[in-house]
């Protein structure tokens, strides 16, 4: 373990170009996936919270089931879609970072939708009627509640980011772990493990944790400043 810690530290200090590229790609793929996933997930979750339609309970049940979707299954489905032999093959985006973003977006949408639905439903109790009284349509109510609970929304996005950057099954399948093109932190760890270089694999794992910790820290700082600014007016 200490060997890995030392190795991790050395890797960071050396600013190894290949490693930097891997980290940057991880951040880029998972970050974009979360933004795209948020677009659909927040909208879907809000819609399910504010709308009333027959079969809503079924959709909610389906959503909760999809939460348990294994990343490798998502990877397989996207692979079959994007393969040249598949329906979307002519786009030729298999084994590219774009395919990885698509797969991870699909992975985080159910998570974000479920969490958003809970968030909006809870706040709907408090203020749904009053916003409707002001003339807001159901979706406007949802959007305003998201604005109201924006720190909660940020937490949801962060949770999704954690899930995305830590998964390996989907990106391995649709990215192919191509050196210099689609290799990310998790697939690197998988590769080093299968090569038997366990200390390096563990070091990369620690690095991954460190990167996520840093992102969390930046978000917390942003939250803190918002709270401080609000407090300053009192």
């Amino acid at each position, binding site marked *: 373990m200490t060997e890995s810690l030392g190795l991790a530290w050395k890797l960071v200090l050396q600013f190894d170009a290949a490693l930097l590229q891997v980290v*940057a*790609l991880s*951040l*880029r793929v998972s*970050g*974009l996936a979360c*933004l795209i996933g948020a677009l659909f997930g927040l909208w879907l979750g809000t819609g399910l919270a504010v709308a009333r339609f027959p079969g809503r309970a079924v959709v909610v049940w389906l959503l909760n089931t999809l939460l348990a979707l294994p990343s490798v299954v998502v990877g397989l489905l996207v692979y079959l879609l994007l*393969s*040249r*032999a*598949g329906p979307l*093959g*002519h786009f*030729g985006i*298999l*084994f*590219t*970072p774009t395919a990885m973003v698509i797969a991870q977006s699909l992975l985080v949408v159910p998570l974000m939708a479920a969490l958003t639905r809970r968030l909006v439903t809870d706040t709907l109790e408090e203020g749904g009627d009053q916003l409707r009284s002001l003339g807001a349509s159901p979706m406007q109510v949802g959007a305003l509640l998201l*604005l109201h609970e*924006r720190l909660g929304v940020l937490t949801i996005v962060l949770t999704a980011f954690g899930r995305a950057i830590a998964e390996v099954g989907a990106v391995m399948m649709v990215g*192919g*772990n*191509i*050196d210099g*093109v689609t290799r990310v932190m998790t697939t690197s760890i998988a*590769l080093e*493990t*299968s*090569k*038997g*270089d*366990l200390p390096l694999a563990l070091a990369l794992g620690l690095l991954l944790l460190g990167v996520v910790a840093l992102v969390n820290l930046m978000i917390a700082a*942003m939250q803190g400043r*918002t709270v401080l*600014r*609000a407090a300053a007016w009192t």
Partner: protein
Amino acid sequence: MAMMLTVRRALWSVLVVAGLGGAAAGHAQDRFITMASTTSTEQSGLFAHLLPAFKAATGIDVRVVAVGTGQALDTARRGDADVVFVHDTPAEEKFVAEGWSRKRSPVMYNDFVLVGPAGDPARTQGKDTVAALKKVASQGSGFISRGDKSGTHAAELRLWKQAGVDLVAAKPAGYKECGCGMGPALNIAAASKAYVLTDRGTWLNFKNRGDLQVLVEGDRTLFNPYGVMVVDPVRHPHVKAALAQAFADWVTAPAGQAVIASYRVGGEQAFFPDARP
């Protein structure tokens, strides 16, 4: 206003993230081909040595998707790769017979070795693989099989057949299939002190040996030939046939063959050129 600030920050972060993408997008304009190959070849480190030389000679990037041999051939059948580089001659010949490629060109060979625990409970040490496997089976000693339709797995199955062991009817006690790559199989063998058949390239690079060591080597039956095949553009029109052919030509020509021969792992030559003009 607080909201404006949050919006501004969100936009900025999107730009930064997309900017990281901009760098890679430019890269996509380069000439490149997708090659389906095997995990053992990649893990031997050969590609890191070979492909930069190819790029320097032709300006073509090779993107390697490394999976098991069976999966690599399937990837090519689906049209997701331009060229295939694996080590399972019967499967490759079938691939050509099915019309997915016009020709299989031999490139190089390396060899397999049988590794096992230092104590060698089945007394396998020597130069006769088939005899060694017979002893492993009769002793019921632990044996790890990749079980993943890879070239290595195919070779292993051929050897068992030669040893007269019918794996379908009755697996020997101690025979375990992991459905995994060479590295993980070695990990399992090291941890459970079992025998395992591995290619020399992966073995030379493998760091987690435990008390495993090479027990059988140099046997003719352990030779492991590699072939390269360009996917037929008639079957898959989108395939970059010209660039893929450039690779096949280069790697079988004296220049490429020399690069292969010059690859060393731990001071030893890992692959032996085998192209026939």
